[in-house]
């Protein structure tokens, strides 16, 4: 029971990060701040969701696979963020200043 509650709490927290990330992607003023919002959703949102799902996994192997998906996504998302940001900088897009 305690494990399911913890799992649900983690999943909801992950969903909150995804919601905030999506909101940021739609509302933030320039490409750099949008990237910031998006990568937070990818890293933390998915990380929390994976933790929540790992608690419900049927076997240790399944939990391991979930963890592995998150680690892969961390590497891919960090690289994609870096690529988009450096492309934008190469294009001469100036960062937004409030």
């Amino acid at each position, binding site marked *: 029971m305690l494990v399911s509650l913890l799992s649900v709490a983690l999943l909801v927290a992950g969903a909150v990060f995804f919601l905030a990330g999506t909101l940021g992607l739609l509302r933030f003023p320039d490409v750099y701040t949008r990237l910031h919002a998006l990568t937070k959703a990818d890293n933390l949102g998915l990380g929390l969701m994976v933790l929540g799902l790992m608690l419900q996994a049927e076997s240790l192997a399944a939990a391991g696979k979930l963890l592995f998906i998150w680690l*892969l996504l961390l*590497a*891919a998302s960090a*690289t994609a963020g*870096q*690529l988009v940001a*450096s492309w934008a900088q190469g294009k001469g897009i100036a960062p937004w200043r409030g």
Partner: protein
Amino acid sequence: MAWLSLLPLAIDLVLALTLLWLAWRALTSPDLFRAVVLFIALGLVLGLVWVRLDAVDIALAEIALGAGVTGALLLAALAKLQPAESQTDEVAMMAPIALRLPIALLLIALLTGLGLVVWQLWVPAPGLSNLVDARLDEAGVAYPVTAVLLNFRGYDTLLELAVLLLALIGVWSLSTAPHLGDEEPEPALAALSRLLAPLMILVAAYLVWVGAYAPGGAFQAGSVLGAAGVLLRLSGWRLSLSATGWPLRLVLVLGVAVFAFIGLAVIGFGQPLLGYPQGWAKPAILTIELAATLSIGAILAALFIGGRP
């Protein structure tokens, strides 16, 4: 808690509506880049729909091939199209209303007809799954989808491999591969490619092996290999010149060649074409799948590079 039982229905509805909306936006977007991105998103949502329909094999194929590799191919094609894009846009915008109206009416009539036909087909058909289950013991693999693809209907799979090879021959006969500039690849991308390429090869091997008893198989594994090739190409890696001659061509035709050879060789043992002798089905299928995986991966990557080396 009766509302909880409505949750799957709600998820299905959201998926279906998202799918329709993405398809509509992808078709109507005047910006080609946006259309391609929407098409990739459509492929991902379609993959989720297949998962909801319990068709994990098709979901894997749709996400890897339909969204991933096709998306990369479309983006590569778009990059070559860019200079001519503005012209084609104007032509598309100028289609006269007198032409568009009959086409719309024709399409509506066609859709209504198709809808009526599908509606009348709405009798649960037994399909062939009982037949497959009954003969699964002889197939050499424990997973029905792989049994159908590589044994019962091996003919179709062999022809699919040949079609892929023919597509590449078509691309190669049109042009030579573009030379990459000497600019240094992004360091982060180069590091990621070093990390991911070995992992993708491992995942491809896993998918081939697991195809014997669970969703997986040569096409999914091959598309993972192909994606590894695309990633390596994008991060500035390239084949050494000595490997682009006959070694590359050997890998490209390996799948079709091994499949056709085994399919023909069994005739010598008194079997019909592509009918594996008793007890030999498992090693035959594994050999064919390994060769096909290598070929599919190489062909997909070569299609992305576009043009003979």
